[in-house]
């Protein structure tokens, strides 16, 4: 049976742990709200971009000199996976889920005889994937020192990707990240970036538009912007999901700590009572012996 003193120490230490997890939960909840509004604010731009792209892309996709960002290189040999994870841990299975999803993808692609390259965005994903695929990681991008993610950060990633495409370093690019469904559930998804899947053309048709300067020139500017937007969206989803996941994880941890404190307190009281009873018995039997 543990001594009273050691029990008391344990209760105190679990209590301070509970304080920390509770505070972390509060912080995560506040940041989650901010991340969610930011994700919401980015939606109108993405929607309109999609509409514009739909009316533009359909008319040009068939032509032989269509931009690479839209149609890819025509080959299907080298796959680039962009894996987006959080910068920090203590968020339940958030990072592990993406990591596991990415690992399954890499295995599946390699089983088909394709070459895989990986860019990791976020520290945790890099750490996770390095264990197994260190030689396939071509770049690690981290925003650990950023307080909030702006569109420039996303353009940085997309510039890197389009540079690699121009250099012919890959054929197909897929973005892997946690899609934010709601606070308690985020699912890892793989979204193809290059060749760009074209959004459906609306029924009224996009062929009515005039273009200035030319269709090709607009498309050449629109596509990199679109790539940036897709990545920006993923980064925002990732941020919101991370805080959601952290909030849930910390809520569970707080509850578990509470349960543990109850158990330990019960144990402590029992031990204390047992000690008192034992002392009483000793005194009584001593008195009887006299």
């Amino acid at each position, binding site marked *: 049976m543990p001594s009273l003193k050691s029990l008391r120490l344990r209760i105190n230490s679990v209590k301070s742990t509970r304080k920390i997890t509770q505070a972390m939960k509060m912080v995560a909840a506040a940041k989650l709200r901010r991340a969610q509004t930011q994700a919401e604010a980015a939606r109108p*731009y993405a929607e*309109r971009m999609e509409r*514009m792209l739909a009316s533009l892309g359909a008319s040009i996709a068939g032509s032989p000199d269509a931009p690479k960002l839209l149609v890819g290189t025509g080959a299907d040999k080298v796959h680039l996976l962009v894996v987006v994870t959080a910068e920090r841990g203590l968020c339940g299975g958030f990072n592990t889920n993406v990591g596991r999803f990415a690992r399954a993808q890499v295995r599946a692609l390699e089983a088909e005889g394709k070459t895989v390259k990986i860019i990791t965005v976020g520290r945790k994903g890099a750490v996770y994937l390095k264990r197994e695929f260190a030689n396939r990681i071509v770049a690690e991008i981290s925003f650990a020192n950023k307080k909030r993610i702006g*569109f420039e950060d996303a353009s940085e990633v997309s510039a890197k990707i389009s540079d690699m495409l121009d250099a012919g370093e890959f054929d197909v690019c897929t973005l892997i990240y946690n899609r934010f469904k709601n606070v308690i559930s985020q699912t890892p998804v793989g979204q193809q970036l290059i060749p760009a899947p074209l959004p459906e053309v609306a029924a009224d048709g996009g062929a009515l538009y*005039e*273009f*200035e300067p030319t269709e090709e020139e607009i498309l050449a500017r629109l596509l990199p*912007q679109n790539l940036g937007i897709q990545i920006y969206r993923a980064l925002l989803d990732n941020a919101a999901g991370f805080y959601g996941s952290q909030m849930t994880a910390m809520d569970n941890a707080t509850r578990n700590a509470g349960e543990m404190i109850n158990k330990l307190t019960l144990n402590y009281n029992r031990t204390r009572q047992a000690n008192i009873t034992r002392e009483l018995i000793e005194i009584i039997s001593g008195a009887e012996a006299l």
Partner: protein
Amino acid sequence: MASFQLELVSPEKLLLSRKVDMVVFPAAEGEMGVLAGHAPMIVSLRGGVIAVHEGGQVTEQLFVAGGFAEVAADRVTILADEATPLASLSKSEAQSRLAEAEAAFAAAANEAPEKREPMMARMLAARAMVEAAAAA
């Protein structure tokens, strides 16, 4: 006067969405004024100032660094890379940005023309920003 729906969005937020009479924006090949009932167009923008006209007056002026505009008969959607109201434009920031863009352009003097083009566009946008900041 007939009005149309103007929407101005940047990647980070929806900046403007309301009925206006006319909008003038810096299209790639010159300033372009759009009234209601314009023929449908998709236009690429360079750096410059967007002016919103309502009731015969300029009610809002914003600087954009570049972007796209989609014009339809009853609405105009402007996708700006970055938009700042003219009043809150910082002169010093504009100047430092111009210096940076000029340096990058000069450094890439030997690059292929396709590579220099976006830098050129950036430099011109920065120059427009300095001008807009000076005028404000």
